[in-house]
């Protein structure tokens, strides 16, 4: 009996202590998000807060967020994936090409995602088997995958529109920008489902535990019997898959895959993850944080647009916010390690 008592008091304490720090980080990012919304709401005289505008933001944020989820996995391992933007282009154009070649839509989508998975596998092999620094490995593949994208499209967009098949075009337009329940964008639904699935993978599975362990201390993880190579490979594959998903959604919205689609998106995705509390040093992070981070970026961009802030000034503001986010993360860690 006394044993039970001990456990129950322990449990109570446990709940208080549980992830105090991470909670604070998420709370902070979420607080920033709410404050930005209120700020823009006031400054725009309420037009920012209109449901339609908020749904537009949700649609705009979707590809960055989905990409950010995959990047979160890679960042947790302590790695990075600079090729993710190119994989957006690659996945999108492979899918579109498949459709123009007469492949059915579901199969084409699977082929597109497979293209991203293979790209992720290649990145992962460079990083694990060949032990190339992630930054360099994926910088190289950033060029390579962009080149492949251009090759598939022969330098031009691959247009589904040009097929002239109204049925296919309408299906794609729905996937890329259609609405369900009246006004909720379909891609946003996809984003939410992906977030839930990947969030569960990260927090509830053995793989998730291994991933954090590898990112926290790779050698400790290895000496605890964790297959570090397999764990890291899986992270890069997930990143490739989410990138190609984002690419397919982008291509679907226009019913045309641009060969330069996704350029620079990897940095947006990394920024979203970092603002949401994922550490570039590895070992820490989560999907919910990345969702919030992506929305912080999206809200900023949309709000500043509504306020007619010059596009170049916007870049300065967003850049500053990213640096502050990383600085905060570093300072927090430093304080912890003292």
């Amino acid at each position, binding site marked *: 009996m006394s044993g039970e008592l001990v456990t129950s008091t*322990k449990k109570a304490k446990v709940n208080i*202590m549980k*992830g105090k720090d991470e909670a604070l980080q998420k709370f902070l990012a979420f607080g920033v998000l709410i404050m930005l919304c209120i700020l823009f709401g006031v400054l725009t005289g309420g037009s920012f807060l209109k449901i339609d505008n908020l749904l537009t933001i949700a649609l705009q944020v979707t590809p960055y967020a989905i990409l950010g989820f995959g990047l979160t996995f890679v960042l947790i391992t302590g790695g990075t994936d600079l090729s993710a933007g190119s994989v957006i282009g690659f996945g999108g154009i492979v899918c579109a090409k498949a459709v123009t070649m007469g492949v059915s839509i579901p199969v084409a989508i699977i082929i597109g995602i497979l293209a991203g998975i293979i790209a992720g596998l290649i990145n992962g092999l460079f990083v694990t088997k060949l032990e190339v620094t992630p930054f360099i490995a994926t910088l190289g593949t950033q060029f390579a995958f962009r080149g492949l994208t251009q090759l598939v499209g022969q330098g031009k967009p691959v247009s589904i529109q040009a097929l002239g098949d109204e049925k296919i075009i309408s299906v794609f337009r729905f996937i890329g920008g259609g609405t369900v329940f009246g006004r909720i964008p379909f891609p946003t639904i996809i984003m939410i489902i992906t977030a839930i699935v990947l969030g569960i993978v990260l927090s509830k599975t053995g793989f998730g535990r291994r991933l*954090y362990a590898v990112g926290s*201390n790779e*050698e400790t993880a290895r*000496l605890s*019997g964790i297959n570090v190579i397999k764990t890291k490979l899986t992270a890069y594959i997930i990143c490739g898959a989410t990138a190609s998903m984002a690419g397919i959604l982008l291509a679907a919205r226009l019913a045309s895959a641009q060969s330069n689609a996704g350029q620079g998106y990897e940095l947006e995705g990394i920024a979203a993850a970092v603002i949401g509390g994922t550490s570039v040093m590895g070992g*820490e992070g989560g999907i919910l944080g990345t969702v919030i981070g992506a929305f912080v970026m999206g809200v900023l961009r949309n709000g500043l647009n509504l306020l007619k802030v010059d596009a170049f000034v916007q870049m300065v503001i967003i850049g500053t916010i990213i640096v502050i986010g990383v600085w905060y993360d570093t300072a927090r*860690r430093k304080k912890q390690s003292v």
Partner: protein
Amino acid sequence: MTELLKMCGISKSFPGVQALSNVSLTLNAGEVHALCGENGAGKSTLMKILSGVYQADEGEIFINGEKVAIENTKKAQQLGISIIFQEFNLCPHLSVANNIWLDRQPKKGLFVDDKKLIEQTKAILDDLGLSISPKALVRTLSVAEQQMVEFAKAISFNSRILVLDEPTAALTESEIDRLFNIIHKLKAKGVGMIYISHRLEELARIADRVSVIRDGQYIGTYDYKDVTIDKLVSMMVGRELNNKFPSHKRKIGKVLFEARNIRSNKLNVDNIQVRSGEIVGIAGLMGAGRTELARAIFGADKTYHKEIFVDGKPVNINSTTSAIKNGIGYITEDRKKDGLALNMTVERNINMAYIPSLCKKGFVDENAAKENAAKYIDSLRIKTPSMYQKMQNLSGGNQQKTVLAKWLCNDIKVLIFDEPTRGIDVGAKYEIYELMNKLSDNGVAIIMISSDLPEILGMSDRILVMHNGKISGELNREDATQEKILRYAAGLSNEEGKGA
């Protein structure tokens, strides 16, 4: 003879440890003064005080009869003190000349005067009789040559006091001869050298005097010709064993673990057997290959060849995962470096090697994880406010218990402890020893690597001593003494009348 250096009554304590108490040391010009003591006796602390890395709590330092305060390493350099560490402080991608004159290169206006730089480097190298090119990149040099560059660098500072920390550890016989030649040259120039080495047999060739410290205490200074290796060893270890180890009756069973023919570029081990319930201690000096042996057994490092048997059955261990599957666990030497993930929670650390058993179809049973962590926090008395506390906030002893918990939850038959009590206080040490005894009661075969000789003697049923990647001796609990272990560890035999 002129006295170059006098260190008087030096004391230094760190939280919980008196590293040095009232230690004295003198060094004459043109002398090689050997400094002897076990691992952890305080030799390197004393040298770090001399080089300004640490400040002494008490005591005085005189150089050429003048009292000095060595506040930092720069000051030590100005006073003509140079230390040549085991690990060299050279920039591998720079040339020999640039390394020696790093940040002090002769200038012509804004630019480095390359001609002069090469000239003055050549002068020093010639002086030492070295045939190294001043333009050679350091990374292209052998270990011995790099060490010579360190010497040249020390000379370039006009150092009169040179500390050599295990200078022969990485050298071959002929390279050692060359090193000793250089030492003789420096002696002739009036440089005083403090020489730290575990290879007692080589001291006879160069040492003029020898000082012994033990557990931070100054034992004495002798002319080298007046001491024998036997006397030196007994002075180094002469501490009495008190009741630091829990008494225990072992129930030793059948052979549970066997390793045969472990070969790698650092290991050449023919056979090790450990019985169930037995604790086999592995002693040896740093670099003897003890950790390498543990990592080879555990599948953490590659070997050319090895045969491992658990419970009489041959097992194939090609990764840490397969080692754990076959019931082998490894508690590493440095828990912060590779034993724990410090920024993760206690719970995650305890369960790190246990994930496969916690998973049902890939999903972690969080309740089982919690229960498992709570069970070990309780039974090992790990002091933590919660299982979700970050590892880094726990004390060393509690961190070590967490590492232990990580292995206990798996069905471990063979457990390797590498320096199980390094850096933890006496009370926690006792608890760790008790846990080891409890494990042996449960029939676990234990291999314990330790540099702490009393620990080896107090805990082991059998002791293997390693030297140069080989098992150089085996001792039963009854026959083992610190002297015998040290002789085997130094590569000497334990037959009477040899090596003195």
